[in-house]
């Protein structure tokens, strides 16, 4: 025993097994060094600050003005970014790296840029507006002029017809011109018109409104204005319609003008005289072309300014983000009494103390401060955060464990074992080396492109795949291994390791399915014999093999879990847990299911015909009966009786002693301190600053007992149900192989039976589709989930508390662009 303990103590430490040792530290930073010190610590990224001002609202904190300024600056930067993307420019992918500018300088610079941009925008807006107006005017002139001319001509033609009838042969030309003049005159006095332009979408409602307002006494002419015009508000191109309204009366005029205004329709005067029209059109056109050149110059100028901003944009944005993070962190610190120093507290891993001190010294030196930063370790009453140093490979596995719950501080970390057991259990369910190779190729592609993909922003699905690339790699490797054992390649058996040991009874092989095969030489050296595929013995053999394997794997993994609880108890020096929890648990599990595993192995080794169901069931029902032909080894009956008794003893053993001993310990501890309880809290802090001590101040026996009862019952029932739960390994593996058989035989082989290229191709396509989506994606997912469950529930509930909290250091590297 002694030597065993020694051996365990001298085991080399496992990095990932226990989380990093943490310590609570206090920093006393002179005000002049504070900013620099905190930003150096942010670059180091190994200190998690505690918020000492949690009760203050954000705008009551010390550095609220700086935070606001940073917010303002990032608003400006967002404005620039928006402008750049609106102008269709790309912010340069390789930003210029400049020496860091001071925040104040940057602020001024940004304000200048913003001012300049806003001015340019308003200028170009004005120009754009004038341009739009002219453009609209031009359209109105073109189209409305057309209306006027045609309506005049029409009227004239009608009149002439009339006049022809009335004045049959009189001087025709003169009369008509006279009449025309009269008409014109009438136009000017009674009939007037307003011409303008309106959005196409509003035209119908506009017309209706005009009709109602004038009680139908108007004539509305419209024509789409060929070109699209930019809407200054939304910067979108809008289709417009040119209209001309004829009406009579002054009152109608004001009404119509009001309606025009209400609908945002711009009205432009169009002279009736054609020559005048032409003249104005010419003027408008010339001014348009002038404006166009000015506008173009403006846009070029603006784009140039934006491009020059774009060079620095990324750098500025990251700088502002960092500054904001620094001030947010500074807001977590307290002023000391003299107001000359800032006091901060935080957690850091013990190994990082030297680095932190170095960074702080550097900060003191760089800011020419007289006083150094004081850095010292404090005693902590709360549990420290959990910090595992993971790498690319182990990170994904740690994530799998963390998804269930973050480990308690320094608790045994199941991720160490998960690295192998998780992919392995997956592979037991996914055993097919063909599918395994497909997965492997996928994983290798992801790993080969690691450096490129890690800098890109991926979709949520790709990100998941990419994050789990090393899990995928091991999963595929183990699937290939298990596939070789099951001898499955897309459900086709292969003779890889030599010839089969079996042959058919006759040449036709017709009775292989009903009568079975004959063995004629040594067993197949590795895995399942390929000749069994489709024979009578295939399913019974594979089921028996997989079922027993699942139980062996399950019992082994659960034992590992219980053993880890032993290491946990040892680590936390909790001999009570070892004696009254670990030992009875080990005895209980192994006297029942450990024994079953032993029987399985003996049966495999001896080739016995014993019925293990029978043995296990009658071990409980009538332990004293003779085993008969089911006896596997000498002395099995007495052994069973002993094991049964041990299991029965183990139950009260794990239930009763622990709570009673805890109660006794508690009453002993407070013996003779009956009236020391009053001021005990302060007193205890001074004497025993041990965090575990705090929690035991109040001892509630019934609570502890109920807790222990629940725990014991859960373990006893769990031992049965968890072992049964491992049978999912068999079930999923069976389902996978049967599914792939169905797709292979009922789709691919069936299609190949036809001598028709089309049917063959369709069959191949269906087979490929089913393999990719059902077998490779869905089955991978389901096997993954079941492996996850086996780890979270069946394995981790034996030892894992998972009630810690993660170490979140203040680090610039971790600040992401989550604020847009």
């Amino acid at each position: 025993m002694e030597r065993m303990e020694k051996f365990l103590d001298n085991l080399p430490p496992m990095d990932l097994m226990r989380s990093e040792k943490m310590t609570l530290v206090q920093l006393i930073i002179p005000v002049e060094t504070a900013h620099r010190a905190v930003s150096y610590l942010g670059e180091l990224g190994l200190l998690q600050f505690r918020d000492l001002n949690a009760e203050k609202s954000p705008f009551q904190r010390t550095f609220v003005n700086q935070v606001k300024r940073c917010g303002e600056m990032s608003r400006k930067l967002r404005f620039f970014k928006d402008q750049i993307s609106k102008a269709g420019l790309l912010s340069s992918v390789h930003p210029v790296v400049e020496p860091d500018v001071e925040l104040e300088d940057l602020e001024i610079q940004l304000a200048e840029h913003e001012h300049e941009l806003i001015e340019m925008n308003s200028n170009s807006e004005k120009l754009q507006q004038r341009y739009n107006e002219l453009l609209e005017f031009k359209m109105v002139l073109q189209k409305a002029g057309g209306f006027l001319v045609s309506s005049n001509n029409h009227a004239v033609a009608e009149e002439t017809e009339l006049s022809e009838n009335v004045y049959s042969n009189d001087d025709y030309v003169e009369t008509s011109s006279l009449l025309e003049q009269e008409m014109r005159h009438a136009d000017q006095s009674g009939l007037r018109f307003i011409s303008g332009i309106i959005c196409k979408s509003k035209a119908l409602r506009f017309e209706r409104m005009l009709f109602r307002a004038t009680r139908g006494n108007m004539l509305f002419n419209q024509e789409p204005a060929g070109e699209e015009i930019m809407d200054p508000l939304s910067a979108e191109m809008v289709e417009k319609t040119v209209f001309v309204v004829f009406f009579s009366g002054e009152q109608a005029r004001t009404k119509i003008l009001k309606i025009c205004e209400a609908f945002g329709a711009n009205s432009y005067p169009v002279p009736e005289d054609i020559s005048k029209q032409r003249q104005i059109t010419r003027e408008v056109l010339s001014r348009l072309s002038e404006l166009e050149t000015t506008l173009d110059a403006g846009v070029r100028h603006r784009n140039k300014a934006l491009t020059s901003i774009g060079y620095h944009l990324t750098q500025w944005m990251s700088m502002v983000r960092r500054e904001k993070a620094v001030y947010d962190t500074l807001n977590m610190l307290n002023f000391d009494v003299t107001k000359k120093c800032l006091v901060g507290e935080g957690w850091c891993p013990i190994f990082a103390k030297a680095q932190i001190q170095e960074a702080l010294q550097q900060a003191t030196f760089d800011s020419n401060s007289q006083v150094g930063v004081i850095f010292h370790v404090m005693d902590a009453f709360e549990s420290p955060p959990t910090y595992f140093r993971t790498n690319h490979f182990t990170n994904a596995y740690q994530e799998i464990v963390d998804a269930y719950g973050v480990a308690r501080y320094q608790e045994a970390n199941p991720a160490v074992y998960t690295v192998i057991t998780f992919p392995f259990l997956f592979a037991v369910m996914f055993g097919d080396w063909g599918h395994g190779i497909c997965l492997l190729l996928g994983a290798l592609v992801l790993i080969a492109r690691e450096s490129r993909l890690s800098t890109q922003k991926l979709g949520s699905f790709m990100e998941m795949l990419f994050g789990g690339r090393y899990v995928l790699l091991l999963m595929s490797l183990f699937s290939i291994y298990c596939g070789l054992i099951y001898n499955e390649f897309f459900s086709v058996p292969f003779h890889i390791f030599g010839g089969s040991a079996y042959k058919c009874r006759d040449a036709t092989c017709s009775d292989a399915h009903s009568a079975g095969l004959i063995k004629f030489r040594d067993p197949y050296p590795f895995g399942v014999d390929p000749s069994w595929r489709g024979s009578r013995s295939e399913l019974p053999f594979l089921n028996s093999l997989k079922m027993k394997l699942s139980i062996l794997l399950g019992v082994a993994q659960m034992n590992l879990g219980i053993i880890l609880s032993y290491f946990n108890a040892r680590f936390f020096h909790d001999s009570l847990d070892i004696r009254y929890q670990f030992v009875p648990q080990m005895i209980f599990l192994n006297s029942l299911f450990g024994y079953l595993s032993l029987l399985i192995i003996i049966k495999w080794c001896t080739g016995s015909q014993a019925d293990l169901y029978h043995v296990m069931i009658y071990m409980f029902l009538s332990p004293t009966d003779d085993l008969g032909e089911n006896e596997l080894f000498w002395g099995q009956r007495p052994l069973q009786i002993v094991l049964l008794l041990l299991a029965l003893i183990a139950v009260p053993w794990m239930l009763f002693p622990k709570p009673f001993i805890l109660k006794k310990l508690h009453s002993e501890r407070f013996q003779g301190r009956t009236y020391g309880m009053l001021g005990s809290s302060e007193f205890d802090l001074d004497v025993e600053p041990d965090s575990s001590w705090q929690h035991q101040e109040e001892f509630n026996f019934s609570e502890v007992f109920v807790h222990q009862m629940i725990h014991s019952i859960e373990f006893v029932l769990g031992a049965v149900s968890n072992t049964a739960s491992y049978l999912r390994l068999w079930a999923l593996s069976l389902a996978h192989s049967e599914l792939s058989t169905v797709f292979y035989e009922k789709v691919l082989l069936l299609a190949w039976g036809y001598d028709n290229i089309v049917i063959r191709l369709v069959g191949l396509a269906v087979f490929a589709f089913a393999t990719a989506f059902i077998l490779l994606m869905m089955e991978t997912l389901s096997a993954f989930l079941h492996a996850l469950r086996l780890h979270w529930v069946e394995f981790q509930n034996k030892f894992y508390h998972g009630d810690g909290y993660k170490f979140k250091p203040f680090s610039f590297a971790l600040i992401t662009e989550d604020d847009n």
Partner: protein
Amino acid sequence: MYGFESMTFNIHGGYLEAIVRGHRAGLLTAADYNNLCQCETLDDIKMHLSATEYGPYLQNEPSPLHTTTIVEKCTLKLVDEYKYMLCQATEPLSTFLEYITYGHMIDNVVLIVTGTLHERDVHELLEKCHPLGMFDSIATLAVAQNMRELYRLVLVDTPLAPYFSECITSEDLDDMNIEIMRNTLYKAYLEDFYKFCQKLGGATAEIMSDLLAFEADRRAVNITINSIGTELTRDDRRKLYSNFGLLYPYGHEELAVCEDIDQVRAVMEKYPPYQSIFSKLSYGESQMLDKAFYEEEVKRLCLAFEQQFHYGVFFAYMRLREQEIRNLMWISECVAQNQKSRVHDSVVFIF
């Protein structure tokens, strides 16, 4: 389908009910208001709001803020949420949601008409309109000279048209007319909404009739108080009361003849639900009445969330958000004008 909503409600209404309940969880709490009341400048308010659901709407506002900007942006959020819900809604929920906005439409019509009467610029007026009550031809309202024209030109296309049947006169518009028109329209609107909810049946009818009755009663009290000392006759006043609610019909008879605030009080104290509101006020006082009514309304609106499978939650949520925006406006005004002692005068805590 009275009593069987739980079987079928979620087919069409489940998603939106979940959405609206999620929105409700984003309403500012008493703790938020306490923090907001401590703010020194509008920037502080913006900073505090940036941690709430209003954050994305305010983050791009340049720094010298105005109260109007804050209110505008907060309203924009409500409008966005409303539009989203309207987009997703199917009948009859979409009609129900549209009904919620008619009140704002009436207010907007009145605002524009009064504004043009006083020769204000239409575009300036349009900016002041509540965005929920906008309709296509609202700007054309300025053209109308009297009620008949108003109806014939513009409102005939809007959902408000049926409510107008009571108030078509050829009289020229003046302030008094417009106010009467507002109340007549509102009366017709409330009655129509009430009828619609009754038609929907089930929990919606139950809850909405309670909420709308409260609204109708409050309006009745307000009309009475506002018309004391004006030339409005008793019969005209009586006509403006909605024909449902707790006060209908006997309370209305009594309210119609009230001559001062204490008589109103005497009438209202006969009704147990309103007793508590008036017991908070001292005699002859009517300033705090609004706040007392708002508080009671908020309480009732919050209760609407206690039941599931009905449309009342949408109405309640919209009203609560509007109250919240009123609160924010008041707080920002107080902060902007350095009147922080008066902050608590008008803020109604929702939770």
